[in-house]
Structures are given as C-alpha cells and as structure tokens.
C-alpha cells in the first residue's frame, strides 16, 4: 500500500489500541498511568512541533505546562469556576507566556531564545515558591475538582485531545506553513532570502506549541487534583525533550508515541523510585549520541515504506 494509506492505517490502529487498552488492562492505577502517558504525549508533541521543525530549542516547555496547571488550579479553587473553563483558559495563558518570552528573543540570532526559555520556567517556579501564600508553595494548590466523574472518562477525554492535537499539528506540519518552518530549521538565513518573515513564523509556531502544553497542564491538574511547582521544573522540560528525541525530532507523532512508551516504561521502574530521573537524563544523552534521529519515527518510516 502507499505510504499515505499506511499512515492512515497506522493512525487508526494506534487509536484503536489506545481506546481498547483500559478495557483490557483494568484498574484505577493503570488508567492513571495511561492517562499520564497521553498527557505527556500532548506535551511532547507540542514541543516537537516548534522546536523539532524550526530547530530552535525550547528548554522550558515546563513553563506552559505549569502555567496551564496553575491556571486550572486558580480558576477552580480560588475563583470556584467550572472545571471546564480550565482548558481554554490554560491554553490562553500559555500562549500569552509564549508571546512574552518569544517575541523579544526569537527575532535575535544566538542562544537568547534557549536561555530565555530555560530561565522563564525556572523564574516562574521560583516565584511560585516565593509567593507561597498565594500559590501554596512547595505543596502547590490542592483540592482541584475532577473534570469528569470517572477516571475512564478522563482517559478518553485525554485520548481524544491527544489525537485531535496531533492531527492538527501534523496537518500544519504537512502544509506550506510547515514547509516554511522546516526551511527555517534547515537554514533560516536562506529562508529569509526566499522572502519569508522568519521571526513571525517562529513566534506563531511557538505560540501554537504553547497552547496544547497549557491545555495538557490543565488536564493534568484535573487528573492529579493538584498543581505544584514540580510541574515547572527542569526535569519536566527535559523529560518532554527526551520523549521527542526518542520519538524522532520533527515528526510530531513520534514524540507522542515516544512519550507514551517512556511513561509506561518508567512506571515499570517504579520500584527504582528516585533513579527514574537519572534514567531519563541518561536516555537523553544516549539517544542524542547514538540515535539522534530517534527510534519511533524512523522505525515507522521504514515499516510504512515496505509496501511501496
């Protein structure tokens, strides 16, 4: 079959598996892990969209994740809003942050964007701790209301969100806009010389990547029923990057699958407890050195091309 057909078959296959999964492997604990995997998938895919295509590394994706989670927490516990408002609100707040960080830095060549993203997440984390009366400090905000009555319901909501988000991001990636983003990643100067306002493209791509991350943060908050400063940590940012690398930089769907795989795998490592973080970092280093093109996307590319 042609590659396009194979891709559609793959997408359907993946969705089917994920729909059926919690019905086969039952239990609250497992559904929780699967849901977490899906949320990480949203985060990783949204990171990959901007950083994978344009090559401008964002080291602080946790900024959007944490901002989204805290937005959900504030709306829900302080302003007593209906939990469903969290999702669009979190996305908007994340986009706002992306503009504040992105507009001054993406127009500059050099490491400014990379440094600013890392710094922004770290500073927001610090502020969350400093203003602990408002934010709950180390423990964060507790008592967030769940979005849906059942964990299974939330799982399917997250699955639907992931599939929809990845589909949208892939559509953009395959469009002329995506082509220009990839041209920016290949050679930004030459892209400008081809008549494109590369700064605008980067800023917009950054904002487009921020929205799902914030939304995912809100989903997380309504899943764990709390939001704390750990969500703004460097570890979260690096985890997301690792997942994207494992999945295959620039593929978007690879990042989502990489995220799900890694989340499941690290749950198996539950026994190792604190060693998980070490393992993630080590995995990133290994992938960067030995498989910079990742594992998932190249594998699928090879498999889906077999029939051609």
């Amino acid at each position, binding site marked *: 079959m042609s590659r396009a057909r194979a891709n559609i078959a793959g997408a359907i296959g993946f969705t089917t598996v994920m729909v059926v999964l919690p019905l086969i492997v039952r239990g609250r604990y497992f559904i929780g892990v699967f849901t977490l995997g899906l949320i990480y998938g949203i985060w990783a895919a949204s990171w990959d969209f901007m950083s994978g295509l344009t*090559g401008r*590394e964002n*080291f602080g994706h946790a900024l959007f994740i944490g901002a989204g989670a805290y937005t959900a927490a504030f709306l829900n516990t302080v302003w007593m809003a209906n939990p469903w408002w969290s999702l669009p609100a979190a996305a908007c707040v994340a986009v706002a942050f992306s503009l504040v960080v992105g507009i*001054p*830095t993406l127009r*500059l*060549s*050099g*490491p*400014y964007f*990379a*440094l*600013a993203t*890392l*710094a922004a997440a*770290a*500073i927001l984390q*610090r*502020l969350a701790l*400093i*203003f602990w009366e408002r934010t709950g400090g180390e423990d964060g905000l507790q008592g967030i209301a769940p979005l849906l009555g059942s964990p299974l319901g939330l799982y399917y909501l997250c699955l639907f969100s992931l599939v929809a988000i990845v589909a949208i991001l892939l559509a953009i990636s395959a469009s002329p806009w995506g082509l220009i983003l990839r041209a920016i990643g290949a050679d930004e100067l030459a892209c400008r010389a081809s008549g494109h306002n590369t700064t605008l493209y980067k800023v917009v791509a950054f904002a487009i990547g921020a929205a799902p991350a914030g939304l995912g943060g809100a989903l997380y908050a309504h899943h764990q029923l709390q939001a704390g400063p750990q969500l703004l940590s*460097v*570890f979260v940012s*690096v985890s997301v*990057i690792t997942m994207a690398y494992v999945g295959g930089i620039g593929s978007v769907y690879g990042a989502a699958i990489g995220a799900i795989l890694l989340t499941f795998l690290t749950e198996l490592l539950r026994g190792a407890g*604190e*060693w998980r*973080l*070490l393992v*993630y*970092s*080590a995995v*990133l*280093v290994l992938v*960067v*050195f030995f498989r*910079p093109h990742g594992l998932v996307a190249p594998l699928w590319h090879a498999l889906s091309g077999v029939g051609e």
Partner: protein
Amino acid sequence: MNEILIYGAVISSVYALLAVGFTLVFGVARTLNLAHGSFYALGAYGTFLMTTSLRLPLTVAATLAVLIVAALGVVMERVLIRPLRGTGLAVPMVTLAVALVIEQALFLGFGSEYRNVPSFIAASVGVGGVDVSGQRLFTVAVSWSVLSCLWVFVHRTRQGSAILALSQDREAAQYVGIPVDRVYALVMGISAALAATAGVLTAPFLTVQPGMGLMPMIKAFSIVIVGGLGSVRGSIVAALLLGYAETLIAYKVSTSWTELVSLAAVFTTLVLRPAGLFGIRTR
C-alpha cells in the same frame, strides 16, 4: 547604606565569578554550558564531603574540590561536547542532561536536607560600622583575586593569548596552529573552576541543597546577557550592576522582589539593546 555597599559587594563578586565563567565558555568555544550551575553545586558539596567524610582541613578540601570540578569540566567537554560539536543542535541539550544527572546524584547521595559547610573565617568583622561575617568578606577578597589572576593569565601567558585569539577568530587561530580542542578544554576547566570556587565560598552562608545550582546559573545568564554575550568586561560590570540593584531592592522593598530585578534587566536588554552593554552589535 554601608550594609548595602558591603552586601552588594559580596553578592556581586559571586555573580562575577559565575558570569565570567559562563561567558568565557560561550565567547571562546561557542558552547552553551547548561551544566554551569552544577559545577557551582559540586564545589559546595565537594567541600562538604571532604570536610565531613574525609575529615580534611577546610582549605585543603576546598582547593581539592575546585580542582576536581575543573577536571570534571574538562572530562565533560572531551567526552560529551567535543564529539557533538559541529552538529550544532545537541550540545546544550546534553549539558542540560548532565546537569540533571548531577542534581539527582547529589540528591541520592546526600538527601534533600540543607547541608552545613564550615566557614573559612568564622568570626564577624566590623567594617564601616557594620557587622559582617568574615566569610562574606573573604568571599569578596578571594573572588576578585581569582578574577585578577584570570586576567593576568589571559593577557600575559601563551595559553591565555591562545584563548583570546580563539575568541576573536576561530579560523585564523587554527591557521596559526593553535590547538583548538585543547584550548576549549582549558576554557571549560577554568569556567568550572570559577563556578566551583563560587560554590565553595558561598556554601557556608547560602543554602546547600541538590538543586542549588539552577538559580545561580539563571542569574549568570541574566548577567551575561546584560553585559554582552562573550564579553568578560561586560559580565563583570553587569555583575556589579545587578548585584547592587538586587541588594538595594532587598533592603528597600523586600527580598521577594530580588528575582524580578534580573528578570527586568534581561527583558529590557533584549528589547532595547540585545547585544548588551559591551556586546558586538550585529546587523
């Protein structure tokens, strides 16, 4: 007023050590070392480890810690960074991963409680009517001595000239036969040593915990951006500016708002004059 002068000096000197190291590596080797904060933390923890477990005298422990961290920096450069150079993308990523590994290793090894590192000078000293801990004054003295030594090294020795040459024109330096890889390793070692020294000096009066390297590194970024990426002079000036600005805010407003000082400074710089105070204006 005197308090501000003195405490401002203390914090500025530490910032200067951190910023100069970071900007040196970027200016010479074009490397974004996101494990810079880890070297700071390792300096502190190394001293702690050697004074408690190995029961070494403080001066020896401190010096050893700095040297070991410097060696670690060189090893990291050689094993992880050099092979990736030229591929452009992954170097900062890898250093960030290293930073995480180090933080986790420290957490697993020492736990998350704050650790106590003894002071070099336990006594308080009266300066200008202000009671300052001897350690803090010691910090100022050592920091500026170290930076002066660095200046002498860079401007008066052969290796130093090699560093200067590389920072100005990499290709020309190669043509003249300067061993580029070795100079990069040297610069990384110096940078790590500076960061570790900062860690050693401040450990007695600042908190020692596994994540202690992150915020100082972010501060270093801010200072380096304000001063101009790659400009050592810029880093020192910006370190003084930001150090004093923070101390002023801490005294006049509240300590909570000090974080926002560097944030505001960076934002203003990026919007108005991205090259920083002493950076090279491009286009």
